């Protein structure tokens, strides 16, 4: 536990706190949980700074497995080791699994109603906007990046165009562009 950040920082008090926090967080995550993770853990609970969120998210992206699941493993593991990782993972999955199953059981009755399809579409658009806001908020964490703002803007735009417009497979962007950016950062850190 010597690797924990500043000791006066807020942190999960117990495994129960961790489980409940992740359960509440995941239950707000319609159409994806990432926007909520940023909002709850960075802005409200302050377990992470914006910079740490980006760093952890980078690891969660590069590793196989769902990003938010990886994120819960990383954060839970940091505070309580393997036990914490498993508890955070369980918090992330238990309640939503129950809800998803319930929805699947009643889905057949209502699937044909256009209002239901419309509501899903509306929530989808909102979910997309929430994720956009997360990206906008995180740009401020790049201010102190060793690459400098010009390189940051370039890498950010290139990855955006590659994924959203050109539909380049994620693996190439992460390992190709990510390798390039990390190498550049490595050289700048020396100087």
């Amino acid at each position, binding site marked *: 536990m010597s*690797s924990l950040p500043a000791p006066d920082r807020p942190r999960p008090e117990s495994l129960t706190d961790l489980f409940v926090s992740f359960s509440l967080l*995941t*239950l707000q995550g319609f159409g*994806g949980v990432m926007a909520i993770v940023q909002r709850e853990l960075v802005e409200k609970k302050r377990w992470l700074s914006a910079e740490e969120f*980006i760093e952890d*998210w*980078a*690891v969660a992206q*590069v*590793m*196989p*497995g*769902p990003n938010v*699941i*990886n994120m819960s*493993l*990383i954060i839970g*593991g*940091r505070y309580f080791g*393997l036990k914490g990782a498993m508890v955070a993972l369980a918090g*992330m*999955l238990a309640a939503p*699994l129950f809800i998803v*199953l319930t*929805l*699947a059981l009643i*889905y*057949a009755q209502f699937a044909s109603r256009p209002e239901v399809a*419309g*509501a899903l579409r*509306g*929530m989808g*658009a*909102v979910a*997309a*906007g*929430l*994720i*956009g*806001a997360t*990206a*906008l*908020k995180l740009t401020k964490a*790049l201010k102190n*990046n060793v*690459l400098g703002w010009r390189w940051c803007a370039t*890498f*950010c735009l290139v990855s*955006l165009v590659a*994924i*959203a417009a050109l539909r380049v497979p994620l*693996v190439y962007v992460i390992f190709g*562009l990510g390798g*390039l*950016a*990390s190498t*550049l*950062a*490595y050289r700048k*850190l020396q100087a």
Partner: protein
Amino acid sequence: MNAQLELVFGAAEWLEFFFHYLSLSLLAVGGGIATIPEMHRFLVDNNLWLTEAQFNASIAIAQAAPGPNVLFIALLGWNVGLNAGGYLSGLWGIFLAMAGMLIPSTLLTYNAAQWGQRNRDLRSVRAFKQGMGPIVVGLIMSTSLILATTSGHSLDHWPLWLMSAITALICWRTKLHILWLLTAGALIGWFGWV
């Protein structure tokens, strides 16, 4: 998901099912969504364990429900189980699919993250995190754009795009709770305004 299949599942089939997910787990860089085409080929095309409608509904429901989108994998397992018997084998299907999908990636990610945390002062670890920063932000922006245009790229969808953009601005600039925004989106969609 009304139409079900009637499958006979023995230990061999369940094992094959489990190993399919085990083998996909480490390929799911960037999340489970990237592995959807491979699952479709295995479950629907090759083995005929799921109908097309069951496959699509599993993904749509998991997207709409709260929680990680990876739960579509649980629903795929549930539906395979229903086809193979009933609710009990449905639960068994959920367990095998989720365990197969999550165990390998979880072990790898947990150990890599712990290693990174112990060695976070290494120049290479710092360089990785600094270098990946702008790319992570770019990827999150891409996710937003892709999700905003799932209904299509035709200009007819401008009300949906406008709603996404306004949501982004509100969430960026205010402390309004996300559930209010989602409720508003659901109501606007329910009444057919977007």
